Structure formats: C-alpha cells, structure tokens
C-alpha cells in the first residue's frame, strides 16, 4: 500500500514537471515512468534523487550558518564585479536560480492542482506562501504603486538576510535583499509573469531602520494578458 502511495506521488510529481515547468523536458511518456523508476531502483542500491520522496521541509539550520555563507557569497561576488549595480545583479541572479526551483516545490507541497493565472493571485502567492516559506511569516504590505499600474511593491522590515550586514558609506544604497528580489523574480518568471524585480530601502517615519521594499515591474505582455482574462 505504501509503495502505491509513493509511486502515485512520484507520478504526480512527474506530471507537474511535464505540465508546469518550461525548463525541464522528459522524453518518457507518463505511463512508462513508473516502470522505469522501479527498474532504476532495482539496479542501483540507493534510490535516485528524483525517486526519493520529497522531504516535508521542516528541518532547520542556524541563522548564523546562513549569514556566514551569505557573507562569503557577497564577498566573492565583490571580487567579480566593479560596481554596485553589478553586485546587486549577481545577488539577484543567485536568487533567480533558487526562485525557479522554489515555485515547483512550493506548488507541489501546497497540493494545488490549479496554477495561478491572474496577476493578483500570483502576487498573493508570493506575499503569503513564498514569504512564509522563506521568513516564517507573511510579508507586511502588498501594494500597487501610484505612479504606474505595472508596478507592485511588497514591503517588509528586518529581513534576516540583512541582519548581520552593515553597508559602508561608499557602497551607497546597496541592499543585499537583492537576493530575495532575485528569488521573487525567479518565482514570478517560472509562473509565467516576467518582471523586473529590485530591492530598495525605504525610510519609515517613526522607525529607526528603513524597511525593505521589493519593487516588481511587470512586462507589458503580462498586463495585456491579464486584462484580457475574464475577471472574477
């Protein structure tokens, strides 16, 4: 019985790959996937990575381990670039590759059989599910910019990514939450909403530290498609 359930899960996972992900293609048709999984497991002692069940995602690691590794990544990126913009771009690219993979895993874990096709739903997904996965809580605000209707902003304060980072004066407005912006860009891109995502510091009156705002500027194609969809 247990192998039934896990093989059904594997088929479901394979189905998600074939339908949702534009980045991975499988040459095998769905009905022979289960038999090939069984064959692979028979010939190698340890199950292939893809055939192992997906973990529940509840294990934890200390914040200091993450901060050390993140600081090494920033330091290494500094040696490869010559200005602040490129440094932010590299951090964003690191986050982008994470975001692409994150969407698949989160959707699978959510057991959602429907994809979000409306822009607002996708934004709500980022605002609640992705943020809860990354930071343990929902983001503070999700707002639409007054100036342009293709810009949306998610704000939060005290992201743990920036907790142990102090930016020197000659680095200007560098925000290492560009990493988080990259993750958001990866998630949105993988879901079919290409956008330019950046992270900014926005001072809040009455609070000593500025809050971090992730600004998302969507492509014109996204807005056109969204307005063409029936609403409701």
């Amino acid at each position, binding site marked *: 019985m247990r192998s039934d359930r896990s093989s059904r899960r594997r088929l479901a996972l394979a189905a998600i790959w074939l339908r949702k992900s534009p980045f991975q293609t499988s040459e095998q048709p769905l009905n022979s996937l289960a038999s090939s999984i069984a064959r692979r497991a028979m010939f190698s002692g340890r199950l292939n990575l893809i055939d192992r069940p997906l973990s529940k995602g509840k294990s934890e*690691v*200390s914040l200091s*381990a993450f901060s050390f*590794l993140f600081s090494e990544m920033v330091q*290494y990126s500094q040696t490869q670039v010559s200005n602040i913009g490129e440094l932010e771009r590299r951090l964003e690219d*690191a986050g982008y590759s994470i975001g692409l*993979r*994150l969407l698949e895993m989160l959707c699978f874990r959510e057991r959602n059989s429907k994809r979000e096709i409306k822009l607002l739903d996708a934004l709500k997904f980022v605002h609640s599910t992705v943020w809860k996965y990354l930071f*343990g809580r929902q983001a503070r605000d999700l707002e639409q910019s007054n100036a342009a209707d293709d810009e949306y902003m998610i704000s939060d304060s005290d992201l743990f990514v920036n907790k142990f980072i102090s930016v020197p004066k000659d680095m200007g407005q560098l925000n290492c939450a560009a*990493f988080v912006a990259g993750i958001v860009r990866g998630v949105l891109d993988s879901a079919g909403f290409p956008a330019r995502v950046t992270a900014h510091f926005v001072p809040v009156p009455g609070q000593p530290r500025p809050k971090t705002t992730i600004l998302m500027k969507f492509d014109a194609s996204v807005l056109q498609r969204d307005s063409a969809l029936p609403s409701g």
Partner: protein
Amino acid sequence: METINSEIFTLMYGSIVRQLITDLEDITEVNKQLDTMGYNIGVRLIDEFLAKSRTAACTDFRDSTEKVAKVGFRMFLNTTANVTNWNPEGTECSLVLEDNPLTDFVELPEGCSKLKYCNVLCGVIRGALEMVNVQVECDFAKDTLRGDELNEIRLKLISEGTEAYPFKDDD
C-alpha cells in the same frame, strides 16, 4: 538560537556552487575556492562557537574532534557527526555525517564527478581549528554524491601549537 528553514540554506549553497562553476570552469579551481571560502567562514565561526557553547578548553585532539563533531555540527547545521576510525597514534580520525543539509536536493551531473561539493565544510573545520592553534588537514574520504553510503571527512592532525599570550606584559 535563531533558526531558519534549512532548504533556503541548501538552495543558496547550490546557487553558490553553480556560480563558481560558471565563473571558474575548472573543477579543481572550484574545489580550492570552496575550501578558501570555508576557511574564511571558519576563522570567524570559531568565535561564535566558543562564545555560544561555553565549553572548557579541550584536553587533546580527541577532545577537540568530539567537540567539533557533536557540539559544532549541531549548533550550526542541526545535525551530528560521529568520530570514528582513529589511527593508532591518535592523530587521524574520520567524521562521519549521515545526513548533510548541504546536499539535500543535489545530484552531481556526469561532467562534475571530481567536484567536492561540500568542500566548504572541510575549509570551515580547518579554519576554525587553526584559530585555536590546531593545524589539521581535512579532506573528504567518502561522499554520498559520488555514490558512497555516507559522508566521511578525514581529519589529520599536523601540529598543535601552544597558546601564546599575544601581549607582552612589560611593554
């Protein structure tokens, strides 16, 4: 101790390794760079380890490796390692890790079989121990990503310095 979801840590490490491979293209260079990054982390990690764990001074190399395996790994990676395979003089041992949060979703492709994916761990151990005057050489003997059953790090003690007081009293 503040903790975060370990998967974001795993994914970020994967992203770092990917960037290194794209930039450097030579696998031995990538291994060296991972070791250097680990070394830089280790020299600062030892301060936090000593501050948070409040352990007494270690008596000998055996004690140090036990502390690294049990306290150190649990504090930072939330997993324990076992110390086994001591050689007769007591200068070499193996740290055996069963589950490694760095390699949770990882599979090495065909062209990267020489990549020591978790080399950063070796660098961290080397850097941390060097700051307490214990010089070791650290290498991966068995790696789950290359098909072995568990991860095994081989530690070789090179020398143990004595603690020297950095200031001169009569100056």
